[in-house]
């Protein structure tokens, strides 16, 4: 059991930033692991890859992936990514952020990017609460769940993220848990190869903050919940895929094709103007 060999994925991580800040049992590390694994399997050009994140525990992921990365303000990664993707469509822009960042404060940007079918890719770590600020109720907190701001049990109905995404027009929608690492990796590969707005929800354990308050004190307990409750059902009705204690429907929900916003935009430009296609000329000069 020597350790002189290096981890096969270490080249995709910023050594200076390791080890990461995440708690023991936190699913964010698994998501990062699957993400870089997917990049490795696709042999992607890291120079053409931009990882954008927002605020929250998972927000740090941008710093950890050894590629172009930007850590924006709370809720705004998709808006920022819109600028990046339109300015240079050759860049593969991936937003990795949390449920609060993407669907509470950033909800508006999500649905509009999906509506426009902007060709950015969104991976959401859904941990059911605001972990970084100490476990407050959020847009995905299950009914009756306990958080530091729902001490008597949550009375708000949570978002069903896959339903929201497909209703908003995403061309690829999938849900996995951090236990489904193989499928998640394959799913991320698919996501990275889609043209239009694509979305993966990763149900992720937050034992230290959320679990503790809801009788799942360890990551293992939360992962066991995922193992017990999850059922793989591809292309089932996202409207019927609410996450409950008993059942977590995982799988692909949507996989369709339609021209991306930037494609249509640059077709227009090509048709209207003459100088279309000279991207980054300001930078190049």
């Amino acid at each position: 059991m020597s350790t002189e060999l290096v981890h096969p994925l270490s080249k995709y991580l910023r050594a200076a930033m390791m080890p990461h800040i995440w708690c023991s049992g936190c699913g964010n590390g698994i998501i990062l692991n699957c993400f870089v694994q997917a990049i490795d399997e696709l042999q992607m050009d890291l120079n053409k890859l931009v990882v954008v994140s927002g605020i929250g525990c998972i927000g740090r992921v941008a710093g950890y992936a050894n590629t172009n990365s930007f850590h924006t303000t709370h809720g705004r990664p998709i808006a920022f990514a819109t600028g990046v993707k339109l300015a240079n469509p050759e860049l593969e822009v991936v937003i990795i952020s949390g449920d609060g960042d993407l669907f509470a404060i950033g909800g508006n940007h999500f649905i509009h990017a999906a509506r426009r079918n902007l060709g950015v890719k969104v991976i959401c770590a859904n941990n059911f609460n605001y972990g970084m600020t100490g476990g407050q109720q959020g847009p995905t907190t299950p009914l009756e769940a306990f958080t530091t701001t729902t001490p008597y049990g949550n009375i708000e109905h949570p978002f069903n993220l896959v339903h929201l995404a497909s209703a908003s027009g995403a061309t690829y929608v999938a849900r996995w848990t951090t236990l489904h690492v193989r499928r998640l990796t394959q799913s991320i590969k698919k996501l990275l190869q889609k043209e239009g707005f694509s979305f993966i929800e990763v149900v992720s354990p937050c034992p230290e903050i959320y679990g503790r308050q809801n009788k799942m004190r360890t990551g293992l307990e939360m992962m066991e919940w995922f193992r017990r409750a999850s059922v793989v059902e591809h292309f089932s009705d996202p409207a019927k895929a609410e996450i409950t204690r008993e059942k977590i429907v995982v799988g692909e929900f949507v996989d369709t094709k339609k021209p991306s916003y930037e494609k249509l935009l640059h077709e227009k430009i090509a048709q209207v103007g003459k100088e279309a296609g000279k991207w980054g000329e300001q930078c190049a000069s």
Partner: protein
Amino acid sequence: MPVRLWRTPLDIEKVKLPKAEIHITKDQCNGCGYCIQYCPKKVLEESEEINARGVHPPRVVDEGKCIVCGFCTAVCPDFAIFVVEKQCEGGCYV
């Protein structure tokens, strides 16, 4: 007649199964226990030692049982464990 493996199969020597080299970066481990729990061959267990992050990193019980499925590598949130396939002359045998 139901097949029972009461007699060692005659071709057992001919069966090639991968042999593993398990690498654990102890101080990177954060002690979640996923690799131990989800190893299909129960190759790992929690060790007594305490690492730089103040947790018990896993320890290999029986490297011989490992079949290099690589799930521990894939499920580790801390990139603290990985498995490589041992290279033997013409493949490793059971």
